[in-house]
């Protein structure tokens, strides 16, 4: 497969996954804002989190200053100037798809293209603040639809592996960020375990990664921070956990199995083993924030390694045996 094709497939999947995750983060912020807040500076405090999770706090502050519900929502959902807004992600996903139309199925292209056209209609019709929850649902639906169509129509070859790679690296990154940011906002209320506010707050964190029902099924008990961390980091049966994501990343890299991908496979294997054999007590003991920061750094390094091995147009000087030069004998 062309390196550029692999690159576009990888980023197409990443952009769609990122759009979905941003929608999830904003959706939860919206739900939380409906709850009575007893925290100080409530609105700015609450709305800073989504900016922080998606790493666009700086861009926002330069434009708007203090975090306000309406401005944050619009900036993260629809602002074309924000490169990680849902709008920008879906736009870039379409451009990636357009560049590799031949490598994806026409059904996949139609979903991405129709999503982009529909998004533009929605933007043109002026989404009101009250309509955003519906908009977030729509973004999630389109992402689910895209994944379903992909699995239902594409040949199981390395094109699919690069799509999976993009999806799950992005998802791992996002779950780690949500957990890191939210955990620290929520921890002060840890004494209040079992209280109503606590229930909603932790519940909303779980819901943002579609893990609320999974938590109930798995633990059948009150929500405790340590279990939330365990579910989202170590449980491999939870589809958005770090462990589940790294399972997919590692197996995609093994399927691709390119000669130049040895280091990427080694790194993924290492990260995966860490999650596979890790214990939540040890994670908490070394500090959740430290643990997640390290995970994010490693994921980033893995992404760079994948890029170097497969996605960029590399320097092939070592591939070609230079023609022998004739040596002048004296």
């Amino acid at each position, binding site marked *: *497969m*062309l*390196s*550029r*094709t*692999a690159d576009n497939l990888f980023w197409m999947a990443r952009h769609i996954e990122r759009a979905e995750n941003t929608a999830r983060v904003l959706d939860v912020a919206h739900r939380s804002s409906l709850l009575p807040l007893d925290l100080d500076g409530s609105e700015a405090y609450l709305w800073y989190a989504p900016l922080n999770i998606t790493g666009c706090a700086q861009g926002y502050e330069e434009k708007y200053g203090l975090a306000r519900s309406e401005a944050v929502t619009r900036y993260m959902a629809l602002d074309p100037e924000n490169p990680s807004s849902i709008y920008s992600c879906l736009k870039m996903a379409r*451009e990636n798809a*357009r*560049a*590799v*139309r*031949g490598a994806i199925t*026409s059904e996949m*292209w*139609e979903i991405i*293209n*129709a999503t982009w*056209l529909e998004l533009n209609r929605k933007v043109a019709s002026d989404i009101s603040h009250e309509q955003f929850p519906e908009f977030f649902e729509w973004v999630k639906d389109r992402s689910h639809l895209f994944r379903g169509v992909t699995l239902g129509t594409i040949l199981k070859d*390395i094109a699919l592996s*690069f799509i999976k790679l993009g999806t799950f690296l992005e998802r791992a990154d996002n779950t780690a960020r949500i957990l890191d940011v939210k955990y620290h906002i929520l921890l002060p209320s840890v004494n209040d375990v079992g209280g109503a506010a606590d229930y909603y707050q932790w519940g909303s964190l779980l819901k943002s990664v579609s893990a609320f029902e999974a938590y109930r099924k798995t633990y059948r008990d009150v929500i405790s921070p340590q279990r939330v961390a365990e579910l989202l980091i170590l449980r491999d049966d939870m589809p958005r956990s770090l462990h589940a994501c790294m399972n997919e990343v590692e197996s995609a890299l093994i399927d*691709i199995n*390119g*000669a*130049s991908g040895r280091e990427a496979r080694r790194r993924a294997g290492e990260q995966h083993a860490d999650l596979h054999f890790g214990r939540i007590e040890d994670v908490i003991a070394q500090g959740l924030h430290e643990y997640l920061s390290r995970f994010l750094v490693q994921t980033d390094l893995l992404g760079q390694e994948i890029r170097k091995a*497969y996605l960029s*147009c*590399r320097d*092939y000087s070592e*591939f*070609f045996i230079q*023609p022998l030069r004739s040596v002048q004998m004296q």
Partner: protein
Amino acid sequence: MPKKTTFNEMHADDGSVREIYQQYAAWLATLPEGTLERKTAEAELLFRRLGITFAVYGEAAGSERLIPFDVVPRIFGAEEWRRLEQGIKQRVKALNAFLHDIYHDQEIIKAGIISAHQVLDNAMYRPEMQGVDLPNQVYAHIAGIDLVRVAQNDFYVLEDNLRTPSGVSYMLENRRTMMRLFPELFANHTVEPVEHYPQMLLDTLREAAPSHVSNPVIVVMTPGAYNSAYFEHAFLASQMGVELVEGQDLFVQHNKVYMHTTEGPQQVHVIYRRVDDDFLDPLAFRPDSALGVPGLLSAYCSGNVVLANGVGTGVADDKSTYLYVPDMIRFYLGEAPLLSNVPTWRLSEADDLKYVLDNLPELVVKEVQGSGGYGMLVGPTSSKAEIEAYRQRILSEPANFIAQPTLALSNCPTLVESGVAPRHVDLRPFVLSGKQVRLVPGGLTRVALTEGSLVVNSSQGGGTKDTWVLED
């Protein structure tokens, strides 16, 4: 301007329906009112969803438009198509023979049929190609021959497109759309299929491969996603099951061409390139080209890779060379031309120039190297001021222009706002040359949607139609 009688493809002068359209007309008469309009809206939705769009240069970046699709088909009979087909094949054979000749022994110049100046001083002549041997002696593997009809049996070749002719994806998508919209029509008409064009193209490209390669790696090369015909490039690559590459995906090492893949470098043997000569190789042609591949020309001239179409074909489809095509047919094939040229005045000749300047309001004037309907003057539909401005352009460099009489292009029924009404059409069949010359029965019919307009180019607001050749 004297009113010329226009040939109507569906209706005879007495208003009766011509034989090949009878079945269609009978079906059309049974349609409930508003059906065609509804189907048109449906077609537009299909095209937009599939992303069959093109970019118009000069408009905001990234803007995409649909080429209007007309739901009324244009129909040819089997017999008239056979005659056309022979004429088209003959013409393309002669053009390829001409290209081989001028890049080798130049017999046609020695014979005094065409001047050395006309060939060697042509900006599209590539001296780099002199003496380069190409497989099957084919230069223009893919040719688009633009035809217009003025009477029942009277066709003219308007121009030959031997560089990177586009539009074939519309021919294929138009057919697919028609079959989806009107399945019942295809049940009661025996329309010759065109769907096998991509397979035919793949066969042609395989045949074009360097002779020492038994299983050639073929790619389609595009300038990129912002090119106006990008949809078509991607479409053809995926229909043929080959990679769609950009210049940045390729590199040259030891005169061989490779593409960057996830498995490392892979050698490429045939490049169906949709990039103009000038942009192919920054080392050989325009140094500022970011679309090309450094060293590509050298690899090509060493015979390690084949470009389709070849480099330097522009010298044969230039509007001033066009005049000599009938002579080429006589010279190389020893046959009488089956298709006629439009009578053409060369403004480099003093007599012709004088006549043309005296009659500008009645003529069509074109730039010798122009294409896409840009930069031409259609006298009868232009204002006095436009004509005067164009006159100044001609006077500044007369040799850059040719002129032709305004042809009465045939009409074909077309759905417009006021209902089904006649509009002018042309036809571009796509001709493939490998070990043999082939074409699918049909082509792209372009239609000028504005009443009375003769300009059918999509960049100038033209639309397209499905083109049917009925079986006997």
